């Protein structure tokens, strides 16, 4: 122990609550970062875009966290938790960036509530206000299921963040530059496990192929374009996911070829009236996920954690 923190009991009687291991209060993940919106960029669109990318990371992180203590062995349990943590970090920055770009998006809380904007966005929005792709919210299945889900997710997100490094919004560009390094590890891990399961036993291969078939209808949404994405791509702020399609297909085909697994032939999961996750139209799975994730925060909207 070093003596930086004085007595741990000081934290119980007010004083500096940050003496606890991870602090009992929050810190702004963008403290000291210049969050000025570039000239000519629509604040509401920028906030909506940050929520889409932030919600992808947040919801995926929540699903991966559910794996904690359930993976086939300790190393893979830790791997999934690490990946979830990286994505949670990306979500925090992106939600904080959304709030800084357009404070209107932050749900109103009781006066004097200490809940910071990023948490208000995570815990006090309803399913229809989330802009994540539906692949992120699907309920967990077996280990092959999480490997396929993470492969599809990380291949697309990495291709997107590679391009987002050139955003004229410096916050987005910097979040992307860091995210690329993290996603590279996530994608490699998922791809290697994909090969392992494909070349393992008859049972592991059967489960892999089943999971791929089940999740494939969610894949096209990862490379589809929402009007906000198109508008911000034209402004040099965002990335049109359609521009990542060739790279995404190339990486996936590389994995399929090496594993001898055929690219599935299943139609995309259509949204209600063409509306998908990016439009706030989700599968039933998201409500259940949010109920569990948000229940404690919502019970104590003025709570200090």
């Amino acid at each position, binding site marked *: 122990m070093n003596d930086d923190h004085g007595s741990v009991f000081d934290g119980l009687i007010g004083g500096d609550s940050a003496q606890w291991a991870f602090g009992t209060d929050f810190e702004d*993940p963008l403290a000291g970062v210049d969050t000025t919106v570039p000239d000519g960029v629509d604040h509401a669109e920028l906030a909506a875009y940050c929520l889409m990318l932030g919600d992808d990371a947040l919801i995926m992180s929540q699903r991966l966290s559910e794996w904690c203590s359930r993976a086939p062995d300790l190393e893979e349990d830790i791997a999934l938790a690490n990946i979830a943590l990286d994505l949670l*970090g990306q979500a925090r920055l992106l939600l904080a960036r959304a709030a800084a770009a357009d404070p209107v998006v932050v749900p109103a809380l009781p006066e004097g509530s200490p809940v910071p904007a990023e948490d208000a966005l995570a815990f006090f929005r309803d399913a229809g206000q989330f802009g994540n792709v539906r692949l992120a919210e699907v309920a967990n299945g077996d280990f092959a299921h999480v490997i396929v889900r993470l492969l599809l997710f990380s291949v697309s997100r990495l291709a997107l963040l590679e391009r987002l490094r050139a955003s004229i919004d410096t916050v987005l560009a910097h979040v992307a530059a860091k995210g690329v390094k993290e996603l*590279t590890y996530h994608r490699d891990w998922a791809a290697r496990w994909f090969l392992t399961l494909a070349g393992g036993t008859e049972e592991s291969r059967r489960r892999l192929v089943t999971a791929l078939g089940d999740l494939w209808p969610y894949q096209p949404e990862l490379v589809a374009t929402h009007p906000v994405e198109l508008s911000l791509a034209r402004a040099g702020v965002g990335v049109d996911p359609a521009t990542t399609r060739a790279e995404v297909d190339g*990486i996936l085909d590389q*994995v399929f070829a090496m594993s001898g697994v055929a690219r599935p032939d299943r139609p995309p999961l259509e949204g209600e009236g063409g509306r998908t996750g990016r439009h706030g139209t989700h599968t039933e799975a998201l409500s259940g996920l949010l109920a569990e994730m948000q229940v404690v925060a919502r019970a104590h909207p003025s709570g200090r954690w």
Partner: protein
Amino acid sequence: MSPRDRAVEVAGQVRDPEMPMLTLADLGVLRGVDVERTTDGEEIVVASITPTYTGCPAMGTMRDDLVHRLNDAGFPRVEVRVVLDPPWSSDWISERGRTALREAGLSAPGPARRPAGPVALTLGPPRLAPACPRCGSTATRLVSEFGATACKALYSCTDCLEPFEHVKEI
């Protein structure tokens, strides 16, 4: 010694909460320390830190440790700012830091990949296996690319049979 030099020296002694054999400066997380004057003429120490990984949960503790140490050293006003650019690289770990890692039984990172365009998929073993920090053998095996903290991978040595942690290249 100027207030700035003293602030740099004090902040430079603060250690990483998860790898206490390293100072934040040796880890490359402490990006700058300066003394500024507020509009009311007061001295304020501004320290800049960058996360190793975006979700690093130790950022809050690092911030608090910097504030407490500087307060104790006679700087009542301290502001810690987050710097996101350029993103942290394991290449920033100093020589002294690498020695400290090895002495603590950890393997120091090799050079990081620096892709500018599309990142190639790595399906084989991710890199040249690191040497065992205990016996020096290069007959080591990757156990997991993810370890007890975001910045470490797990290896084991097939000669001395001891497991060890390797700080990842990013």
